Every structure is written in structure tokens, then in C-alpha cells.
């Protein structure tokens, strides 16, 4: 062997030594230096956590009647790792599954892809609330559907169908945008949250905490035998008690449905703001939302001109007609534009700026004071007040104070702020070219009788009437009453502070209340036909709002019992005509439900006399 070859072999050997040194060093680094870190990673690797969904809290009415409960339902899940590996068979199975679940293979694939990105190896829920027939079918044909599993999950149950649908709202899967919100921190895709109504507002109490089961798994995500490690049971959500009175609520909904016109109603405690009943017609089945909506259902909800999902009691935007007059009266009295004893001559019309404003039905009521003007609903009387305050802003100031055209603070999503037209508003709009003329006397004359550009809803009107009734406290309307934990202990009581206090002279209040009482229960009153024979003294005001191109909208606001009311009820019905025609009878049914006990007692005592 020559020297050159020896050198080459030596270099070869040196190279081999270097390579082995590298291997030994790397081995030592991995096992001795970083061993602990890798051991931890390995331990973490072999376990997989499964979330066990928690049942949501139940929702009760104020008397403990169940409004929303839970029931178990069967959910169809697919374990993507157990699907056939062969693409053709896989596609065929997905196609069969899509057909069974009324979906498309494309949609299924997309869904699986989305969920797998976030929770690899976890089963993907394809469809919840599947029928037993489908489950039986799948079990009998298991060999044709490898990887498909059926799991029991909780879904919302509504024992009374549509009752309080708009208040309760619905529960749905958390959306991608919602996942980014702070209040939903820690939730994962596929988790259910309240999407509307009190389910939304009180979601953090109702939601509960999902449990966790840790299972030792192999690389395919398959649990290994005896591999169950730790399991944290799910914590059910707390239950919510609403201020809603099931009977009042039901009476309101039945009354609305009997008339069959779109509209809304609200019944509220005038002192606390607790809402006893609140509803909208047409309504919907909240149970529809427990399973994923089909495109057809979504289209129906969106295209339906009657907008069943809209809560007209809090999101409706209408002029109110004469039910606005008490507010005009307070404004005029408090700003000194009207004396209690003042008499105004009602000739049947008032000409303002060359344009005649007439009474409804072209009646002429002669000499009227505040009380009789309210009783007969003299428009000319209130036109005159509107004219006196046309550019002073006093009517707007008082309307605003009483909560018209501003947020009420209600604990339901989707309420509308509305609009209290003012000189500032219209002049601004005119400047921007949004209307053809600036503010004029006619605008305020219209507003004084609840016509024109005014946009409000039963909720705001109820708050305004409640303020009049309770002597000046603007309450915060609310439906949430208290939170109980699953064991029944009270965790939290909701008693929101009043929004503000308004100083109303008790004499003025008494006069207006008297006028409203006469309107309902004095011979010439506008709603005497409805409430004349009602055994409990009440104070109520009709309203007939002009809403071209629609027919007149029927309104009724009522405080009961007179003279120291406990509740206020407001009802409105689109195209219901004169206030006493549609809205007042519905309000009467609500009051009959609320005073059912007292009415029964009076009826029996009368019967005893006879």
C-alpha cells in the first residue's frame, strides 16, 4: 500500500470518526440534555381531550313555569380517520351521507375540513337532532358507513311551542366572528351560544362549562384499551328566571293571533320595569333553530314580508297617534303653555299656515279643557298645544325626557331607538337635501297628536306611560329577574336602576290620569265601548296612527288600576284601524289575564249578591 492510498484511507477514517461524533453528540443532546422536554412532549402527545358539552341552564317565567328546557337528541358524527382511505369509496360514502342528511358532499367536506383544522382527530358533527329512523338505518347498514357514529347531545326544548319566542331567542353554533370576541374567549368552533333574545343577553350564565375527558390514544387518535385518564364532568348552566308571567304572555299572544294583524304588545310593572308580557305577531317556532336550517327555511324567514323574526314590540318603528297626547299634555303644562283650567274652543279644525288640520271623523267637540280633551281625544286641543310650542323645543324636550326616540336599556337585543322629530333634526336634514322643507308649525302640530315623522314602539311608549303613572321615575324595562345555580340557590338578582327621574307636578299627573280614565270608562270616552263595563278602574288612551300607504294603525295604551296603577300595557296593530277597534280589545284580554284572580272574586261576590 503506497503512501497516497494510506493518506486517503486515513482521511476516510477521520471522516467516519467525525460522522460518529456528530451522531453521538446529537444523541446526547436529545436524550440527556433535552430529554425532559421531549418526555413531556411525548406524554402530551399520547392523550387527547374530548369536550363533553354541558346542558344549558333552563329558563322559567316569574312563577316557575318552564319556558325553555333541554332534551337529549341524537347527533350524527363522522370520524374522518375511519373513513375509507380509498378516495373513490370515500367520496361515495360522503355522497350517501349527504343525501341522508339533506346536505351536499361539498358542504360535508368543507365542514370536516374546518373542524379538523382546529381539533385534529376529533369526530365532526355533521348534523344534530337526527331522527331515530335515520339512526336505525345507519346501524343496520354500518358496513356501508364506516366512520359514522351517533352521539347524544343536548338541544333546547320549548314545551309551549311559540310562547315568548321573541323574548327567548335561540341558540346556535358560534360563528367565526364571534369566536374573536372577548366574551366568548375559551370557546371552540361548534360550541353553541345564545344568538338572540335572553339566550343571547344571559348567555354567560346559561352556557355552562363543557367537561373534559382525557383519553390515551395512539397516533390514529384511537383510544387505547383502559386508556381513560381523567375526566372532568360538564358543569350545567345556571337557570334564568324571567319577569314574564306566562298567563299574561299567553293572553297577549292569543289576542294578537286572534286579530291576525302584525303588531306587538307589552305589559310592564310601572314601578320596577319588570316586563310581564312582551310579544310580536306573527311569531315563529324557536324549536326550528335547534337543528341547522335548510336553505328553504332561511329563505322563508328572510323573504316573508311579515318578518316573523322581528320583535315589533321593541323593534317596530311607528307613529303612535293619539296615545302620544299625554306626553304633549305634560310638556305643555310643565312649560306653562297650558293652564289646568284652560278651555279651548274645538271647532273641528285648526288652520296652520293656510293648511287646515281636522279632527278625526271631522267632529267638533266645542269647549274642551285638558281632561275632556283627553276623554274625547280632541285633536284641535292638542294641535293648539303643538302650535304654541312649535319652535320652543319643549315638546321634544319632554318627549325625550320620557324616553321617546332614545334607548331604553332593555335586556333584549335588537330594540330600536326610533325618532322624535325636532326642529334641529329636520333643519339639519333639509340642509343636507334629505327633505324639501325645513321645520314648520305643521310638523309640531302633527307630533302633538303622534302623527307625522314620529317613530317609536310599544316599549318606549310603555316606559313613558309608566313614568307618568309612577310620578316621574323612568324605569329600565327588563325581562331577566334572577339567576339560580343548578342546585336552586339564587346567584344573582337583576334589579336595574331607573334610567332617570323626571319631575312631574302631581296635580298635572292627576289631571292627565283623570282624562285617561274618562277616555276609557266615562260614557263619552274613546274606548268606553271596550272598557266601560270593565270592573276594575283603568286609564287608557286610544291611538290611530296615519301611516300611508298603509291603512291606519291601531294603538292602545292603558294603566291599571286607576288611580294608582301597577301595570302599563301597550298594544299596537298594523292596519288595525281606530284604536278602540283592534288594539283596545287585545289590551283588555291582557288585563283580564293579569287581574284574573280579582275579576273572579268580584264576579263571585256579585253573583252572591244577585
Amino acid at each position, binding site marked *: 500500500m503506497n503512501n497516497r492510498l494510506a493518506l*486517503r484511507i486515513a482521511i476516510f*477514517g477521520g471522516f467516519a470518526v467525525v460522522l460518529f461524533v456528530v451522531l453521538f453528540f446529537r444523541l446526547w443532546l436529545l436524550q440527556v440534555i433535552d430529554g425532559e422536554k421531549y418526555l413531556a412532549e411525548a406524554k402530551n402527545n399520547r392523550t387527547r381531550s374530548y369536550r363533553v358539552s354541558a346542558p344549558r341552564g333552563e329558563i322559567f317565567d316569574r312563577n316557575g313555569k318552564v319556558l325553555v328546557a333541554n332534551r337529549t337528541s341524537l347527533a350524527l358524527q363522522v370520524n374522518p380517520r375511519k373513513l375509507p382511505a380509498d378516495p373513490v369509496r370515500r367520496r361515495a360514502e360522503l355522497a350517501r351521507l349527504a343525501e341522508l342528511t339533506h346536505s351536499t358532499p361539498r358542504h360535508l367536506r368543507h365542514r370536516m375540513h374546518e373542524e379538523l383544522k382546529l381539533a385534529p382527530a376529533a369526530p365532526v358533527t355533521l348534523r344534530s337532532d337526527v331522527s331515530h329512523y335515520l339512526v336505525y338505518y345507519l346501524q343496520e347498514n354500518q358496513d356501508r358507513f364506516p366512520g359514522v357514529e351517533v352521539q347524544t347531545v343536548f338541544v333546547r326544548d320549548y314545551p309551549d311551542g311559540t310562547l315568548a319566542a321573541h323574548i327567548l331567542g335561540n341558540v346556535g353554533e358560534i360563528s367565526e366572528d364571534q369566536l374573536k370576541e372577548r366574551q366568548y374567549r375559551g370557546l371552540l368552533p361548534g360550541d353553541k351560544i345564545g344568538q338572540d333574545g335572553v339566550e343571547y343577553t344571559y348567555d354567560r350564565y346559561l352556557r355552562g362549562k363543557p367537561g373534559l375527558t382525557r383519553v390515551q390514544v395512539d397516533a390514529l387518535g384511537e383510544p387505547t384499551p383502559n386508556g381513560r385518564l381523567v375526566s372532568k364532568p360538564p358543569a350545567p348552566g345556571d337557570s334564568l328566571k324571567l319577569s314574564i308571567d306566562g298567563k299574561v304572555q299567553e293572553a297577549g299572544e292569543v289576542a294578537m293571533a286572534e286579530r291576525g294583524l302584525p303588531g306587538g304588545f307589552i305589559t310592564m310593572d310601572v314601578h320596577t320595569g319588570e316586563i310581564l308580557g312582551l310579544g310580536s305577531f306573527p311569531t315563529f317556532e324557536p324549536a326550528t333553530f335547534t337543528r341547522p336550517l335548510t336553505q328553504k327555511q332561511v329563505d322563508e324567514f328572510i323573504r316573508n314580508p311579515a318578518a316573523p323574526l322581528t320583535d315589533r314590540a321593541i323593534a317596530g318603528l311607528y307613529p303612535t297617534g293619539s296615545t302620544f297626547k299625554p306626553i304633549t299634555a305634560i310638556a305643555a303644562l310643565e312649560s306653562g303653555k297650558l293652564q289646568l283650567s284652560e278651555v279651548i274652543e274645538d271647532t273641528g279644525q285648526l288652520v296652520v299656515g293656510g293648511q287646515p288640520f281636522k279632527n278625526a271623523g271631522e267632529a267638533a267637540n266645542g269647549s274642551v279643557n285638558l281632561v275632556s280633551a283627553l276623554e274625547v281625544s280632541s285633536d284641535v286641543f292638542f294641535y293648539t298645544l303643538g302650535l304654541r310650542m312649535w319652535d320652543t323645543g319643549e315638546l321634544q324636550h319632554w318627549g325625550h325626557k320620557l324616553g321617546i326616540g332614545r334607548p331604553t336599556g332593555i335586556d333584549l337585543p335588537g330594540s330600536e331607538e326610533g325618532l322624535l322629530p325636532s326642529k334641529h333634526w329636520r333643519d339639519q336634514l333639509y340642509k343636507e337635501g334629505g327633505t324639501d322643507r325645513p321645520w314648520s308649525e305643521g310638523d309640531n302640530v302633527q307630533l302633538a297628536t303622534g302623527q307625522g315623522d314620529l317613530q317609536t314602539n310599544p316599549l318606549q311608549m310603555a316606559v313613558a306611560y309608566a313614568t307618568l303613572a309612577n310620578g316621574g321615575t323612568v324605569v329600565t324595562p327588563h325581562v331577566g329577574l334572577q339567576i339560580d345555580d343548578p342546585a336552586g340557590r339564587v346567584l344573582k338578582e337583576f334589579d336595574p336602576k331607573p334610567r332617570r327621574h323626571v319631575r312631574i307636578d302631581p296635580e298635572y299627573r292627576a289631571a292627565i290620569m283623570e282624562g285617561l280614565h274618562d277616555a276609557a270608562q266615562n260614557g263619552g270616552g274613546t274606548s268606553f265601548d271596550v272598557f266601560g263595563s270593565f270592573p276594575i278602574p283603568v286609564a287608557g288612551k286610544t291611538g290611530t296612527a296615519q301611516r300611508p300607504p298603509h291603512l291606519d294603525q291601531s294603538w292602545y295604551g292603558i294603566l291599571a288600576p286607576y288611580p294608582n296603577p301597577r301595570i302599563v300595557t301597550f298594544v299596537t296593530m298594523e292596519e288595525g284601524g281606530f284604536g278602540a277597534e283592534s288594539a283596545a280589545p287585545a289590551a283588555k284580554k291582557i288585563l283580564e289575564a293579569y287581574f284574573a284572580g280579582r275579576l273572579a272574586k268580584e264576579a263571585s261576590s256579585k253573583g252572591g249578591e244577585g
Partner: protein
Amino acid sequence: MYATRARQARPEPFAVHPGIAERLGLPYMDGTLAFSAAALAVVSVFVLARATLHDVPGDPYYYADRQGLYAALGIVGMYLLTRVDYSRFRELRVGIYTFLCVSISLVFVFGFAARGSRRSFELPFFSFQPSELGKLLLVLALAGFVIDGARNGSDWQRTVRYLCLGLAPAALVFLQPDLGTALVFGAITLAVMYVGGVRWTHFAVIGAALVAVTAIVLVLAPAVGTPVLKGYQAQRLTSFLNPSADPSDAGYQQNQAKIAIGSGEKTGRGDRATQTRLDFVPERHTDFIFAVIGERYGFMGAAFVLSLYALLIWRALRIVTLSKNSYGTLVAGGIAAMLLFQVFVNVGMNLGIMPITGIPLPLMSYGGSSVLATFLAIGVLQSIHMQARLSQRGRFAW
């Protein structure tokens, strides 16, 4: 210097009554080489028995039994080759080379397709992968060609000729496709040329060309839309550079193997191993068997196995220096390089410092073709050793 010391240690040259060991040729064999190879085979069977208990339902020792059988056959083959004068292979170089190319080519026709590539023949009791034996055949043939070439043509002509002869079968293997074995063929070719005395400047040019080809294959060709490597191949080759980039794809296996080895710490996790027991590490009985050793037996076990390989390769390199003729030197050099390359690339892959190429760990990875071929290669080394010893004694094998 070895020769002097060895001669004193050996029995009398002309013993009147040779003993049974003498008749079997045992004193002329490299005992350390045989020991390290056999020890590795034993470790392999032992590890397979522990690690693949539940892999084949109803047959807990499926892999261990078979690996043991292959090793036994391999040891017999090794011994038989020991008694053959390796110089015969030089005379048969053209025949060997032809057989090599034909057997690899036949796979394309009769081959058994597994996971998208045809690499082996399906025989009645086992599947034979010609490219494994081909590594040894290439060493034997190429070394012969290099000896021939020393006498004719210019330096450059010779270099190009060797390269072509070595890379032709490598290309065939690459097309199967089996990137790992093709790389081993390439390494063998370069090693034989290196020991054969090809100039340093030529290696510099070859090195530059390699860099250029790598750049073209991995960067340029995919960019212009005519990829040479299959997507998974390119991914495997590059993923070790950033293993945590996507633990669910190419880097996943490597990451899991790394975690497995690391989690073994100093003394190993034994039957409490999870990474390699619960399928987190794929191919645990073949390409990733070193991860099994690392996790189960820790640094002590893995370092022990690495030491056995170091011993094996040291003995192979020692035989390079002992050989009585140039052919033996070239063959031993080729075999040493073959072993070193495979051990480094496979263990490096397990440790996360080399790309995933599908190269088995010699004598350790489960697989009849690989175990047999490796033992046969060691048999050739033993033959070179024996011929060297015998020539020192002035005697030849019968």
C-alpha cells in the same frame, strides 16, 4: 504493523495436525467484525420482539421470528463467502454488473408494487429486493472496472467512465422509485473512485456538479414546472430543515421520531414507551427502528448500538488497509462507505439531522433483502481479511 503483531499471534504455519478451528478457517477471520455484526443482528431481533408484539394479530413474534431467520441465513451466507476468494469476483465483474442491471430492471416488469413503487420480487416465502443485494454487486463490479481503468484512458476519461458505470444502476433504482437506495449507490460509486485514486480536482468538479444538480432538482425544476422528484420526496428531503413547520405533514414523522428518542432520556422508558408503541412513529420496525431503541432503552441503549456500528466500520476500514491486493482495498473501501453512509443517514434521520430518504439501518431494520445483503457484504470483507492472513502465511485457500 498489524501484520507483524498478527503473525506472532497466529498458530504455526505448517501444523501437522490442523485443529477443527483451523479447518473451518476461524483463526483467519476477523472475530471482532463477525461479533459486531452478529451482535447487531441479535439486538435487532430482541428489539423487534419487544416492540412489535401487537403488530400482527395472533403472531406476536412475526417480525422477530422472520428477522432471526434472515440473520441466520445471512450468517451462513457470510461464512460461505468468507471461504471464497473474493478476487474471483473481479474476473466476473462484467457478469456481475450485467446481473445487477438486469435484476433491477426486471423489477419494472415483474416487480411487486408497494406504496406506489416497484422495488422487489414477490417470492413464495419472502419478497426479494434486488437493489439491496445490488449495493454489494455494484461494489464488486465497480472495483473491478476501476482496476481495469487504471491502465487505459486519460484521467478525465476514467473519471467519467466510473461515474457512468456507477450512476447507471443508481438511475434505474431512482426510477423505481427508490431515492434512498439510489443515493447509497451514488455514495458507493464515489467511495470506490476515491479509494481508487481519482484526483482531488475531479472530486471538486463532481462536488460542484452535485450542488448544481441539487439546486436544479429542488429549486429550479419545480419552478419551471418539470419536477424531477415526486412531491413527497422533495418534501421529505427538505422538511428536516424546519421540522416543526407543519407537524401534520412531512416533518411529522421526523418530529415524532425525535420526540421518541428524546423521551427515552438516559435509561429509556421500556414498556412504558408511548411514541413508538402507540404508532406515533411510523415504520418503527424498518426505517425508524433506531427511534424504538432510543425510546425504550435510552441513551445507554442507543449509544451501545451506535458503538457496535462504530466497531463494525472501524473493522471494515482496517480491512481496507490489510488487503493483499488493490481490488480488495477497493472492495473493502466500497463496503465500508456503504455501511457508513447507511448508518449515518438512517440514524441522522431518526435524530432529525438528516432528511427522510427511506434508507434502512443495516442489520437492524426489519427486511430480509437488507439483512442478507449486509451479511454477504461482511462475508466479502471477511474473505479479504482471510486472504490477507493466508497470504501472510504463504498459503492459499483451497
